[in-house]
């Protein structure tokens, strides 16, 4: 190892352990002194570079990390909450829908009376003077055909019977209107045979595949209509 390389090495890396370098140290006291100086210079520099650390440096670093961790934990927690909320939301949205498809059955009489009450004035004012043809045109949907007059039909139409498409027919009774609903039998209702409230009364009878609900005033006799519905209509089974 020549002088230049030796001095270079000694200055750059005084702790060099290569054989050639150590050999020069062993051979020459002045080289040894040179390396000693270089080591001292490194040590001086090191001491100079060893500036004071900020207080609690590593604690601060760990604290910062714990903040980040906590944040991540919390956001991931929020993520779960968000999912939970979404599921709850979807359930909330779909429960009423499901209910629509699968309702707890209502009393057919209650529905009928409500319906009559709600449309009482509307139907009272209309008089379509429906003939047999008109009635049959509507009845056909329910697999029924009237072959004789049912009575004085003032209104005949389809209606929304709590979600079920029913036939809504109004006839003139002795005391007031008599309303006849033909409700498809597959609709989910509690089929109360006889029902009434303060103002109205009614009966339900299975005819063909449908439930025929007849509603009239409390003092009205529904029997005539009931018999007409039974006898003058051919119900498909």
């Amino acid at each position: 190892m020549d002088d230049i390389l030796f001095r270079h090495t000694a200055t750059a890396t005084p702790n060099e352990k290569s054989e050639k370098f150590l050999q020069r140290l062993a051979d020459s006291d002045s080289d040894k002194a040179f390396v000693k100086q270089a080591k001292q210079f490194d040590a001086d520099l090191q001491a100079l570079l060893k500036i004071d650390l900020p207080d609690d440096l590593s604690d601060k670093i760990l604290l910062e990390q714990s903040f980040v961790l906590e944040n991540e934990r919390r956001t991931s927690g929020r993520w779960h909450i968000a999912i939970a909320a979404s599921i709850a939301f979807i359930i909330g949205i779909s429960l009423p829908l499901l209910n629509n498809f699968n309702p707890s059955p209502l009393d057919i009489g209650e529905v009928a009376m409500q319906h009559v009450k709600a449309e009482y004035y509307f139907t009272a004012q209309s008089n379509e003077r429906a003939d047999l043809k008109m009635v049959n045109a509507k009845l056909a949907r329910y697999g029924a055909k009237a072959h004789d007059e049912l009575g004085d039909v003032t209104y005949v139409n389809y209606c929304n019977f709590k979600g079920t498409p029913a036939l809504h027919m109004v006839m003139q009774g002795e005391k007031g209107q008599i309303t006849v609903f033909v409700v498809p039998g597959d609709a989910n209702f509690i089929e109360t045979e006889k029902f009434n409230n303060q103002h109205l009364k009614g009966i339900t009878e299975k005819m063909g595949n449908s439930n025929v609900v007849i509603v009239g005033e409390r003092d009205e006799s529904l029997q005539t209509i009931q018999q007409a519905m039974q006898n003058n209509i051919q119900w498909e089974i």
Partner: protein
Amino acid sequence: MNLFSRKRNKKSDSSVLLDMNRKQKRYEALVNVYSADLYRFAYWICHDPDIAQDLVQETCLRAWKSLDSLLDDKSAKGWLFTILRRENARRFERKQHTLVDIEDHDVADSSDLSQDMDSELLIRKISGLATEYKEPLLLQLVAGFSAEEIAEQLDLNKNTVLTRLFRAKNQLKTSLTTVTTKSEASYG
């Protein structure tokens, strides 16, 4: 560095739950062992205690996030310093720093480091070193890397590193001797 190997062995019989805890322990050990060196290196690179601390914080956070990719604890130090130097470079990308002339600024801590003229001048000289000389010097004297490790860290060959170390120290020494002779002369 068998500091971590003990934990490593335990890992085989640890549950997933304990794994997190282990990672935390490993991280804390890394921080405790290396944060001082990282800070001092950062300080001499940027000459600002606050920025230096931020750099170390970011370095450690980044290290935490990718701690699983550090397979060999022996390479932890080099890995951390690589992250630190990358973070420092990123700092310059983020914000186009106006270059400050070191001569215009008091180098922090210089007064309480030493009243000694030599030290003060040396500190100024270190701060004023070109990055290509300063980085290897700091990696050697602050971080304690060998010439080979510095070469790897800076992606240079070893001879280049040796030359730069030599020149860096020579520059500092020259200034020192000038000052020494000067001050001796003034006393004489």
